């Protein structure tokens, strides 16, 4: 059970992205998904949600969600709160791309994500072609290493919308 102290700690950790009521709901959800009560949600338990399992980026997200306790789980979801800033949302997207967490996104990183999203329906060659073309049009090259500020420049004006609503009883 969550004490008031726990709730405040979680709230602080996620930079007040969620209200106390929302944190309580998320805790209920966390406990519901963590069926064996291990204190974290395993990949199997996430994949038991069919809507999550059919998502093309589920494997990538599972790597980020692996072994998170409740506090970290809420911090993970904070990018999706309506109170999160655009900067925070773009940071989250950057982290999804930057799988080796070195602060730089390579051509191959972007190719991998594109592969997840398109599956077998575009050939590897076509993917490279498309990516190279749009990169060059935006002023980058195949060998460019994109950092956070590049992402902000690219995505900052695209009217990004990335929000989920936490159901509160």
């Amino acid at each position: 059970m969550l004490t008031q102290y726990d709730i405040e700690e979680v709230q602080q950790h996620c930079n007040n992205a969620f209200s106390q009521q929302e944190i309580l709901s998320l805790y209920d959800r966390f406990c519901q998904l963590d069926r064996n009560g291990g204190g974290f949600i395993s990949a199997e338990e996430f994949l038991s949600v069919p809507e999550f399992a059919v998502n093309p980026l589920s494997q990538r997200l599972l790597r980020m969600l692996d072994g998170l306790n409740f506090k970290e789980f809420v911090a993970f979801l904070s990018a999706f709160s309506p109170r999160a800033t655009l900067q925070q949302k773009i940071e989250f997207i950057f982290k999804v791309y930057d799988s080796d967490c070195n602060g730089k996104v390579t051509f191959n990183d972007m190719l991998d994500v594109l592969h997840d999203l398109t599956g077998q329906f575009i050939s590897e060659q076509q993917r490279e072609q498309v990516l190279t073309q749009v990169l060059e049009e935006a002023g980058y090259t195949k060998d460019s290493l994109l950092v956070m500020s590049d992402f902000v420049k690219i995505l900052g004006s695209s009217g990004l919308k990335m929000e989920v609503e936490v159901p509160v009883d």
Partner: protein
Amino acid sequence: MSGSGGKLSSSSSELDLDRPNIEDYLPSGSSIHEPRGKLRLCDLLDISPTLTEAAGAIVDDSFTRCFKSNPPEPWNWNVYLFPLWCFGVAVRYLILFPARVIVLIIGWIIFLSSFIPVHFLLKGHDKLRKKMERVLVELICSFFVASWTGVVKYHGPRPSIRPKQKHPGWVGLLQSTILESVGCIWFNRSEAKDREIVTKKLREHVQGVDNNPLLIFPEGTCVNNQYSVMFKKGAFELGCTVCPVAIKYNKIFVDAFLNSRKQSFTMHLLQLMTSWAVVCDVWYLEPQNLKPVETPIEFAERVRDIISVRAGLKKVPWDGYLKYSRPSPKHRERKQQSFAECVLQRLEEK
């Protein structure tokens, strides 16, 4: 387009045609799917729609909601109601429960002492034996229902009853010996081959003239009576008339939902026997037939619609068996395909 391994692809494409469109039910709102001029870098890098869907599923999803037991609001929290509740507990555990156990024991004694002789002595007179066995089974069922005080209110003209799943343990023993006598059809839900055998048996039974009507629970798993999951199409491809029956439990008295993840059947039974009553409404709805333009899946969906409306259930597009297995890769592939087509299309535009 590259194909997958020979033998499997034909059966999976068949399933493809049959399945109703999940996208109709699921929340979408991905802006990437609306072609808007030339493809730019920000369009490729912006994975926010897909991420939003994933996060939405993590926070809440319609499938898990189907199997959530909703505990009733505690009402015994003030100084006047609490003693009343204690009194209620005493009555339920010390009076009702023992009385019910006694009723059940008496019922079993009567049943077994009649059934066993009938089963062996009337070996030669099959028709009479079957008739008597059926009467006895109905008797023990009434005792069983009485043991948790089932109060059922019927609506509508009654047609007339059963395949059931094999439960492990003592319930299984019961089922295999006694209920087989009334012609129940058994199946093991994890055995794929079993499906063909069951379909054949169902068809034989339905076409046999003086067989009982078949009672089927097409969801394939226990759901919490607020949602309905997709129906298995097996019963709807037999080419016979379907009489839909809608059941709605009144949860004020007890929640009859067997949450098989949380409770075993025995524990659930004990819970029912120490409650006041199990109250439900049963509606017999107008019999339906397969319309000439419908596929069996559409027929199943139509009947599910009729039942859900009557019993106030929300429909969800999920297969109940997803409780035990993963969704097929088809759904993900469909998303990938639509995104890929969009990218290629926008690439062409100037």
